[in-house]
Structure formats: structure tokens, C-alpha cells
């Protein structure tokens, strides 16, 4: 298996754990084997060191030098329109839908359950049809 995403300066990462969970940032420096310095001026992720156990590497990258200041990082992100790119990913959409599901009230959950049942019935009906044809 060939790795394609690496912990490297300029790698765009998603924080998956802790206070800043769900925020996007950029690796500005690699501190040691466990930690990196991240900065996310567009998402409100403060510039701080973070253990990369609580990070997820995204396929995106920006060109910055290690130790770049926040302003430089912001510029690099804006130039690449990274937030728009990120928001068009399936990954982001999944996170959103998960959040939306979490926010549902009891009645909405009930309606969702009914919708799911309907969908399943339709799918199953089609599957049955196809099976009988073959």
C-alpha cells in the first residue's frame, strides 16, 4: 500500500478530538514524533501544538514554509480556496449530516424513521423485481 497523505508542513488537517473538534487547520511545523504545530485562521483553530492522534489528514495541501505566520497561512489557504474545496468533499457532507441527525427532535426522528422505511421498501421492491427477471 502506498501512502499518499503525510504529516508534513502545509498539510491540511481536520481536528477530530477535543475542544476544537471539527475545525480545519494547516500543519505549520512538526514538533516531534507525536506533535505538530497547527494553525487554522479561517476556522478559528488557534495556533497551537497538537498531538496528531487527534488529527485526520486531508488530501489537501498548501505551499507554506515551516513556521509560517498566521497571515501567511491565511493567504495560502485563501489562494487555494481551501474552504470551498473542503466543503465540496463527501467527507464534509457526511460530517454535516451526522451533525444534523444529532440535532433532530423526537418527532423528526420519527419522521426520519418512516422515510427510511419507505426508501427501504422501494429499494427492496426493485431488487425483488430484478431478481425475478433474471
Amino acid at each position, binding site marked *: 500500500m502506498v501512502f499518499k497523505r503525510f504529516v508534513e508542513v502545509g498539510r491540511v488537517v481536520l481536528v477530530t478530538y477535543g475542544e476544537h473538534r471539527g475545525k480545519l487547520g494547516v500543519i505549520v511545523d512538526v514538533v516531534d514524533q507525536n506533535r505538530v504545530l497547527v494553525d487554522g485562521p479561517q476556522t478559528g483553530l488557534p495556533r497551537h501544538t497538537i498531538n496528531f492522534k487527534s488529527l485526520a489528514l486531508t488530501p489537501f495541501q498548501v505551499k507554506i514554509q515551516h513556521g509560517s505566520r498566521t497571515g501567511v497561512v491565511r493567504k495560502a489557504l485563501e489562494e487555494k480556496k481551501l474552504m470551498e474545496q473542503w466543503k465540496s468533499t463527501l467527507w464534509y457532507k457526511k460530517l454535516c449530516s451526522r451533525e444534523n441527525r444529532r*440535532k433532530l*427532535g*423526537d*418527532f423528526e426522528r420519527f419522521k426520519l424513521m418512516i422515510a427510511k422505511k419507505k426508501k427501504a421498501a422501494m429499494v427492496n421492491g426493485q431488487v425483488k423485481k430484478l431478481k425475478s427477471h433474471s
Partner: protein
Amino acid sequence: MGFSPFPFSQAPLPISFNHSLVLVVDADSSSFYRIAMASTSGEVQQKGKEQVGQDKEQSARTSDKITKPKRKWYPADDEPRKRVHRKKVQKPTKLRASITPGTVLILLSGRFRGRRVIFLKQLASGLLLVTGPYSLNGVPMRRVNQRYVIATRTKVDIQSVEIPAVDDDWFKKNKKKPKTEEMTDTGKTKLPETFIKAQQSLDSQLVPLVKEVPFLKSYLCSRFSLSYGQFPHEMRF
């Protein structure tokens, strides 16, 4: 233990006896006394009778500054204190902010646990008056404690509904007066006619309102339950 207002050296009256013991009576409140026996090995024995007199004066002065004793003597027995009787006033139960007339509630205990019901009003006792409505899910007008209820965000607009004049007495089982309640074959007491009529008139008003909102009818008919991966403390209702 009592708490002495002055350090031990300033204790009011060291009364010296001929024995090698000194009885120190130290009162910190009118009802509590501490009696300590101290050996007179050191200073006290050396003081003559005159000195004791001086000490008395001194201690009287110092204690005057600190606390004035109300009496010159201490009662030997505890005096009965008058107890202040406070009237117990039951405050009206505060209705949870999330519960307003028309709110759909999930019952958590009792025979109808898991049922979704509509909240009508709060009774004088603080209990909530709810109904299914009866014709939909079988929950009649009922009193429930708001502790045993989950309030959902779903609300039915029941402003137009005329809620029957139900109070807590409606729900009291009157054993002495079975005139209105007839015994049926199964041994159960029949509901009073007034209750049935009130329920019917309420249902006839509520059901059309429920039917206006899509899926609400089947929602009220269904029962609430938790499935795998659902944690009530993390869920929103």
C-alpha cells in the same frame, strides 16, 4: 463541643478550693456550660486569696468588654427554649419551561410508559393533565408528575380547544360514594358518565388538530423506545 469566647486564661471565675484542683466554670451561652477540672500545680496555687480577688476584678472588666453576661448566675438545668413554629407553606409547583399547553410529552412511568401524549394544563396540585388523545392511543385524561415525563419540542396548537373543567378531585377514587359508579360483570367500577363525556368532547376537538399535521397522528399512536446506540442524555427531544 461548646466554643469558648475567651482564651482559657481569661476564663471568668477560677474558684480555688483547698484541694489541688480548680473548678473552672465557663459559660459560652445561657444553655451550655463547660466544666473543666484543672490541676493547680503552677500559678494558681501561688496566688493568695488577695490575688484571687484581683483576678476577679480583672476578669470582670475584660469580660465586660467582650460579652456582658445576661445574668449573674447560671441555671443548673437546661431551660426549655421556645420553639419557633414556622408555617409550612407549599409553594406551587413550577412548571418546566419546556412544557406549555399543547406540548407533546413522552410518559416514562406507569401503565402508559412510552406513550406520547398531549399536555393540557397544570392542575392545582402541580400535576400535569395530559391526554393521548384517548381515541388515538388510548391514553385518557390523566395526571402525571412532570418528573416522569420528557418534554419534546413538538407542540400542538390547542388554543382553540376547550379543556374541560377538570381538577384534582376528579381523579380521587371515592369509595364511599358508589352511587354513580356501577359494578360491571368483571368487577371493575364503571367510569362516571361525566368523565366519559368530557373525554369524548376533548377528543373530538383534539383529533382534527392532530390530523392537520402530517405524520403527527401516527407519531402519537407510536410508542417511544430506545434502540442501539441511542443515549437519552445525548439526545434532543
